[in-house]
């Protein structure tokens, strides 16, 4: 790998990193605006136009609060908890394909941090590590409620990971590739996986709600039972990191949903747009603009799912904990296995028949 390639990769990763942070930051603003809209009130509207500076004000408040560590807490692990939560949340965005390629002086630059042939497994691994931030932080607080909250969050996460992994297997059987770039490229021309995998999509989105600890699965924070859950003892920016990691997870999972099921940067009629642009503006500028449109479409899809998360949060009441576990283990896992069997049968028997009939 020569130096320019290395620098280009570094720049791409930096841009992805900054974008993730900015989107997560404005998700906190959007969450309150959506809540306000649904509950028929204004939401934040004092700091800046329409409250747009509210996230900055919140960050300022978080930073300047007293950074308190309880006397009997395990100091290093108490700090490591939120750092781990933040780290694992940010890691996953590295493999997401945000668009196709940019052409600069004949060089193709892929709009993706790392193109690896195990992309989806990498995401799954990072998601599996997400529980450590919560568990370490909850244990290090040296507080019964924190520990119980952490255990609850972790058991919820690992229970729903199983169903999530099983619903992904159906996608992998269809695409026969683990690379996210490849999975998106195969969905070109409205071959979106949502049309082939509606059941898998439902299972996946339910599990991603549970993985992000969002309503209706936000049981780790339960004031009536657990005080504040795993972050009872946290304050200032450490608490901020925990809450912020949730929003980053939300963005990452929305992006993954749009990549896996909604064709990523593909949109209807993109070939026509591409040929128009390249014939009008030349193969380089036209290609770049077509890529930008694709990226905008990708972000549109991802932002819609972030909105969907908020919409659900302010609409649906939460589950009880035993209902949550019953749903995860007794309903979603058998459904996911059923989905795998159906997909396998369709790939083996139905697909040859249909392709033969179409030709």
């Amino acid at each position, binding site marked *: 790998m020569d130096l320019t390639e290395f620098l280009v990769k570094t720049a791409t990763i930096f841009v992805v990193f900054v974008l993730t942070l900015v989107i997560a930051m404005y998700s906190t603003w959007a969450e309150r605006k959506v809540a306000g809209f649904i509950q028929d009130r204004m939401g934040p509207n004092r700091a800046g136009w329409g409250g747009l500076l509210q996230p900055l004000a919140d960050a300022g408040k978080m930073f300047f609060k007293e950074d308190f560590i309880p006397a009997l807490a395990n100091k290093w692990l108490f700090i490591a908890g939120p750092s781990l939560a933040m780290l694992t949340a940010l890691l996953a965005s590295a493999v997401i394909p945000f668009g196709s390629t940019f052409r600069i002086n004949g060089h193709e630059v892929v709009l993706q941090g790392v193109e690896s042939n195990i992309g989806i497994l990498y995401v*799954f691994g990072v998601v*599996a590590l997400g529980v450590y931030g919560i568990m370490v932080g909850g244990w290090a607080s040296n507080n019964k409620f924190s520990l119980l909250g952490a255990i609850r969050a972790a058991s919820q996460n690992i229970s729903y990971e199983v169903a999530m992994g099983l619903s992904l297997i159906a996608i992998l059987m269809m695409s026969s590739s683990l690379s996210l770039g490849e999975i998106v490229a195969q969905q070109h021309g409205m071959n979106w996986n949502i049309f082939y995998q509606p059941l898998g999509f439902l299972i996946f989105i339910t599990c991603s709600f549970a993985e992000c600890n969002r309503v209706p699965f936000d049981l780790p924070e339960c004031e009536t039972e657990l005080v504040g859950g795993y972050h009872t003892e946290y304050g200032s920016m450490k608490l901020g990191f925990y809450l912020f990691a949730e929003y980053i997870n939300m963005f990452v999972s929305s992006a993954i949903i749009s990549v896996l099921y909604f064709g990523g940067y593909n949109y209807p009629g993109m070939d026509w747009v591409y040929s128009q642009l390249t014939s009008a503006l030349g193969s380089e500028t036209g290609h770049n603009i077509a890529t930008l449109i694709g990226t905008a479409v990708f972000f549109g899809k991802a932002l819609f799912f972030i909105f969907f998360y908020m919409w659900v949060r302010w609409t649906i009441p939460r589950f009880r904990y035993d209902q949550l576990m019953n749903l995860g283990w007794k309903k979603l896992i058998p459904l996911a296995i059923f989905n795998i069997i159906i997909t396998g049968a369709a790939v083996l028997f139905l697909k040859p028949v249909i392709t033969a009939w179409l030709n």
Partner: protein
Amino acid sequence: MNPSVSFFYFLSFLTILSAVMVVVSRNPIHSVLYLILTFFTLSGHYILLNAQFLAAVNIIVYAGAIMVLFLFVIMFLNMKQDHEESKTNLTKVAATIVGGTVFVILFGAYRKTAIPAFNPENFDSQVGMIENLGHMLFRDYLLPFELASILLLVAMVGAVMLGKREIGERHF
């Protein structure tokens, strides 16, 4: 030195350091966290060997599932330093003898093992990629693979049987 070799030495140093820390740490939670770090560095070794699938699965299975359960159990045991039972001299001597024997066996095995020679000219660097691994598993080693899956199924059924609530047992 070429960068991958120096990276190999750095990773190996980290692996051995964290493995030693697993044994040396007084606090069981610290031990578990060092063990997780060891799995990460081992995954780094897999990536150096161009076996990305193995690296990812190592993280998902060991760091993501098994170690979480370890952490669960240890957190609930609530072990404090002052509760640590004092070891008698007999246990210490026995532990030293057993540990030393294992070390001698491992060292002897290492000395006897002939590392298979390979030719860097015609070595297939893609052998650890998932496609090749899949072909290998489902073509050449299908029977062992299926037997292992049956073994796992049996273990799972056993675990469910042990964890099942008996009829008439108290309902929490």
